[in-house]
């Protein structure tokens, strides 16, 4: 083996991981501080090259995240290999002289026969959740070993693998999911085929959604208390179920989720022929153009409250429509009109009339099959961290030596956490001494239950 580390060893090292984390931290700070809209001029060019207007989705940020993921993956697999290749662990027992060299230890003397006390101590240790092993090398002498928190070996691995599960979830969502939105006026029926990005071909949708009602509830001070869309799922022409979609309460159907995202008003428009009969009608949504069938014209419109009449009469107080007519993509004319007043469209023999204002609900439509993986990963992340932080792995050794009617007890241990170890040894010594002097050995409730003492 040469002294040079292979690139893989270097790549999976924690140093690489930490450098990547540092880079992600710095990039993230930049992403929250830099204005996330396009700028012009020279800065603009740099901005667009490095995608600084959208740092978190830029090629270099995503690359950083991917490298960190690979580093984590390599490091986790390496750990897993090490952990599974671990030889069956020996369970050593120590002599008094070895125990004496440990950092944390305690010695005391008990009265009574050694064989009884030895059994009691092992019971006590077991009831405290220790795994124990022991031998009796000579009459009147016990050597006991005890260990707690062996699961700890796996904790770091669980934590790190949970990230891979989360990343798998993100990837699954990115590949198999979609997110889009639709502004649906009350009364509208739509299927997934009309949702951009859903990947459902026209006419191939499994079900349709009908918006039955949209309402806003308000507090006494008129601030909004809630937005509610009443909808019906229609399958093969049959109403299958009704639901109310509200903020914080999306509707999930067939793996697709519908969220209450916004609302607004649309304007219903009638198209009339020369005879004044309605040929067609449709809805003009805010900010969108409505194409007039059979012509190259389209209209856009928005409504506003008209100003009160100068003479003070309230009759004329109502809605007005501001509209624009386009020929192809060219604006042709614009103006202001009242509801239900026909306007002529270019040279066509058709007129349009904005007949009424219809509220619409803005729904976010989303499918993300990766979400369960995200929650699964999050759960394991917490489990792994919980074991890492709150389980305190340590080993204890005891030597009992009968000396006449007395037993000399020596307890020592090793752990990464010295304060906790000192605490454990102290409380164990306390319980042993109290048990030996009173004859009442403290065991856990579970143990007492098993022995039928409760």
């Amino acid at each position, binding site marked *: 083996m040469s002294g040079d580390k292979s690139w893989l060893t270097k790549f999976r090292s*924690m140093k690489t*991981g*930490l450098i990547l*984390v*540092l880079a*992600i*931290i710095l990039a*993230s*700070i930049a*992403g*929250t*501080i830099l204005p996330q809209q396009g700028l012009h001029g020279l800065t603009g060019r740099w901005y667009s090259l490095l995608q600084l207007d959208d740092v*978190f989705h830029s090629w270099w940020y995503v690359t950083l995240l991917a490298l960190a993921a690979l580093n984590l993956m390599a490091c986790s697999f390496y750990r897993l290999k090490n952990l599974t290749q671990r030889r069956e662990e020996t369970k050593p027992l120590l002599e008094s002289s070895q125990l004496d060299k440990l950092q944390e230890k305690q010695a005391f003397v008990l009265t009574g026969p050694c064989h009884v006390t030895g059994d009691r101590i092992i019971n006590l240790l077991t009831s405290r959740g220790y795994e124990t092993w022991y031998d009796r090398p000579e009459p009147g002498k016990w050597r006991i070993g005890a260990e707690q928190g062996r699961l700890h070996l796996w904790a770091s691995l669980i934590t790190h693998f949970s990230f891979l599960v989360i990343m798998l979830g993100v990837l699954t969502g990115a590949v198999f999911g979609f*997110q889009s939105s639709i502004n649906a006026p009350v009364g509208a029926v739509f299927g997934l085929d009309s949702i951009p990005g859903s990947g459902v071909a026209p006419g191939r949708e499994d079900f349709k959604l009908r918006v039955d009602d949209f309402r806003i509830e308000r*507090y006494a*001070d008129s*601030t*909004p*208390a*809630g*937005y509610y869309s009443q909808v019906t799922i229609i399958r093969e022409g049959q109403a299958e179920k009704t639901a109310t979609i*509200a*903020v*914080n*309460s*999306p509707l999930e159907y067939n793996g697709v*989720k519908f*969220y209450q*995202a916004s609302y607004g008003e649309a304007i219903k428009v009638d198209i009339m022929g020369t005879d004044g009969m309605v040929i067609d009608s449709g809805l003009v949504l805010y900010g969108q153009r409505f194409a007039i069938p059979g012509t190259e014209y389209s209209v856009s419109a928005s409504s506003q409250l008209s100003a009160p009449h100068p003479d003070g009469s309230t009759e004329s107080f109502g809605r007005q429509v501001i509209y624009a007519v386009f020929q192809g993509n060219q604006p042709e004319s614009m103006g202001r009109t009242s509801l239900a007043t026909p306007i002529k469209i270019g040279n066509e023999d058709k007129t349009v009339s904005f007949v009424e204002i219809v509220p619409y609900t803005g729904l*976010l439509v*989303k499918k993300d099959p990766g*979400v369960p993986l*995200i*929650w699964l990963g*999050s759960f394991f*992340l*917490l489990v792994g*961290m*919980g074991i*890492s*932080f*709150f389980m305190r792995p340590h080993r204890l050794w005891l030597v009992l030596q009968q000396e006449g009617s007395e037993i000399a007890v020596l307890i020592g241990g090793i752990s990464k*956490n*010295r*304060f906790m170890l000192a605490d454990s040894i102290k409380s164990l010594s306390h319980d042993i001494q109290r048990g030996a002097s009173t004859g009442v050995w403290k065991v856990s409730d579970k143990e007492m239950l098993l022995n039928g003492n409760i």
Partner: protein
Amino acid sequence: MGIYEDLAFSGAFAAYTIAILLTVWGFAARHDAVSRFASYVTIFGWVMNTLALILRTLGAGRLPLSNGFEFLVAFAWGIVLFYLWLQYRYRLKAVGLFLLPVVWALLAYAAVEIPETQKAITPLMPALKSNWLSVHVSTAILSYGALAVSFALAVMYLIKERISRNQNTSSVLYRNLPGEDILEESCYRFITVGFFLLSMVIISGAIWAEQAWGSYWSWDPKETWSLITWLIYGACLHVRQTYGWRGRRSSIIAIIGFAAVLFTFFGVNYWLVGLHSYA
């Protein structure tokens, strides 16, 4: 703010102020009775703080966790909760000297800088009407509380370490500060508790965001800064474990981490704009 809530708030603020003075006195004069009295005054302040939160809960008919003012009062409460627990568990002296001023500053900020409109109880906006609100914000309070304690311990460690490097072991500060070992160890413990809770904050926030906004992660400034904070503490734990970066270096990272906590709360609200604009 109701009159009784106002009284409780003022009582807590006054008690914490007095507790700081008593702590300084007890520390400088090495007077144990004064230090003990300072602890009692702190407990009184915490009870008042609790009362202020309870009264607001009763007044609003919900947990008081929905705007910047409410969060600050609860944040102070969480810090003192962990401080009292630390006192009980580790019997560490002098932590209050470094921690209570943080609590004081938070409450002073809440009293002076937060506009009256936020202090009034306002009904919840639709996005906040969720059971996840209480889970998300209460874990945030506990997490930030634990991290504030780790910050105070890290500062104490750095001071103690600096004096001992200068071999000025006769100074009052040196003699009255707890040992470097216990400071370093308890600082680490509080970071692990705070870090674990911070993970819960981020996860519960993601679950909630998925329910309210349809996306578990949106790179909103608040989200991003909580991730930055999380990465800093995560890195801190890794270098401690692997490279044995203890003491000075890990204390410095703990201080940077808490600065990130404060920025996540204050900085993001006042300088950056995002979805998370209520607190």
